[in-house]
């Protein structure tokens, strides 16, 4: 691997780490966007030069969606607002939760998920975004409720070969899917439990608080979900889901990451419970399955052994495209750990940061 770049979005700014020795060591740049939260980051390598995105916000001056074409040395904010609800909708973007380049067949398409629950699409590499009206006008929308972090559309999953097939995940609305490019959307939550609802109402059509969905590009029909209590697998792109929790110390958590090359391998970072958002028994461990969720094993070699009380948020764990894969996670204690051997061993690569909100990694040719 030549140059690897790791974007670290935190509660108070963005740090970029670079490695030129096949991920053995990392050098960090100066902090950027000081005192501004960086909830979402992305690297789009489909065109040259690669484009880096950051969803930045302050408590006062509103959200910002900006990009860099020089790997973070300078940032561009278009003259026209890059993202915003149409006049008359009464809504305004509170936070950009997710920035997701589409597939290789659509190299200029970039999606953004925001709060309040909405999906935006750009056809010009992220310079301007338009509201996906089909989801915004969905008849379920008045019944969607905010999750603990807000009314967020936090995950966007374009099908790797079918450009009109896109899934989104919202808290607390659940998984929705379009197969016609965004005109119509259907919930895809059958089998996922909403444990916080009355006992006889725990499997609704929508309203689950699904925290993250991941899949391997070679198997887009097989999905994995980390729910607000429950880890699930679907073999039919969300038509139905079944639990795959055996071996996990808890079925609560946020982060879920697919291995870049092995479709049966995923990584999970369990937390004790929604009211105890710490690693189970305060042991800092990533869990890995190598058989699509049938079993999970703890990974801790190189991680701190003393009690650890930092959670990992939904976008703060990622894998790179290396072989063996690099896996990275950032904690709310401001530490970033990395593995360059599929998760077998770990090392601290950045610390003493504000709490980590978002990570993305890419190999730069």
């Amino acid at each position, binding site marked *: 691997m030549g140059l690897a770049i790791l974007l670290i979005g935190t*509660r108070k700014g963005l740090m970029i780490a670079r490695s030129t020795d096949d991920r053995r060591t990392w050098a960090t740049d100066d902090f950027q966007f000081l005192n501004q*939260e960086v909830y979402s980051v992305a690297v789009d390598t489909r065109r040259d030069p690669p484009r880096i995105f950051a969803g930045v916000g*302050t*408590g*006062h*001056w*509103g959200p910002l969606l900006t990009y860099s074409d020089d790997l973070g040395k300078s940032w561009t*904010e278009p*003259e*026209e*607002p890059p993202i*915003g*609800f149409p*006049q008359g*909708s*009464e*809504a*305004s*973007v509170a936070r950009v939760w997710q920035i997701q380049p589409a597939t290789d067949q659509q190299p200029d398409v970039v999606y953004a998920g925001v709060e309040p629950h909405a999906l935006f699409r750009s056809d010009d590499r992220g310079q301007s975004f338009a509201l996906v009206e089909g989801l915004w006008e969905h008849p379920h929308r008045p019944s969607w409720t905010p999750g603990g972090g807000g009314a967020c559309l936090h995950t966007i999953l374009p099908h790797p070969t079918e450009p009109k097939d896109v899934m989104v995940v919202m808290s607390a609305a659940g998984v929705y899917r379009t197969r016609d490019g965004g005109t119509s959307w259907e919930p895809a939550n059958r089998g996922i439990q909403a444990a916080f609802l009355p006992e006889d109402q725990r499997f609704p059509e929508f309203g689950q608080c699904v925290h993250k969905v991941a899949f391997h590009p070679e198997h887009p029909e097989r999905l994995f979900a980390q729910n607000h209590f429950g880890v699930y697998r679907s073999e039919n792109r969300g038509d139905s889901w079944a639990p795959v929790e055996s071996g996990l110390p808890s079925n609560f958590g946020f982060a879920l990451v697919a291995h870049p090359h092995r479709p049966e391998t995923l990584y999970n970072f369990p937390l004790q419970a929604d009211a105890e958002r710490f690693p189970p028994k305060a042991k800092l461990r990533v869990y890995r399955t190598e058989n699509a969720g049938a079993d999970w094993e703890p990974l801790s070699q190189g991680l701190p052994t003393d009690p650890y009380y930092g959670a990992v948020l939904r976008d703060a764990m990622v894998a790179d495209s290396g072989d063996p894969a690099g896996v990275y996670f950032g904690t709310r204690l401001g530490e970033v750990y990395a593995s360059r051997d599929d998760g077998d061993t770990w090392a601290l690569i950045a610390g003493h940061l504000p709490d980590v909100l978002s990570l993305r990694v890419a190999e730069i040719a």
Partner: protein
Amino acid sequence: MTSRLLLPAALRHYAEEQAEVEIHGGTLGDALDDLAERLPQLERRLRDEQGRLRPHVLMFVDGVSVRGGAPMDTPVGDGAEVFVAPAVSGGTG
């Protein structure tokens, strides 16, 4: 009507590092519409895409807060001072 928009340090980057800029209009809404034509990145930090004052932005016209009622209808006289400040709310520590 021409008035002066007085900016906190955090916003001067969007005004070519100036502490104040001229704005033109008889109401605050008209004046900020004028600002949006010339310095759109500054204007959108004050108002959201629906033209509403952002929740944690304070504005004062000649010392009087425009909060409450219809802020964008606030008259702005010739030579008025329009003072912008971040509210003490809106942070997360």
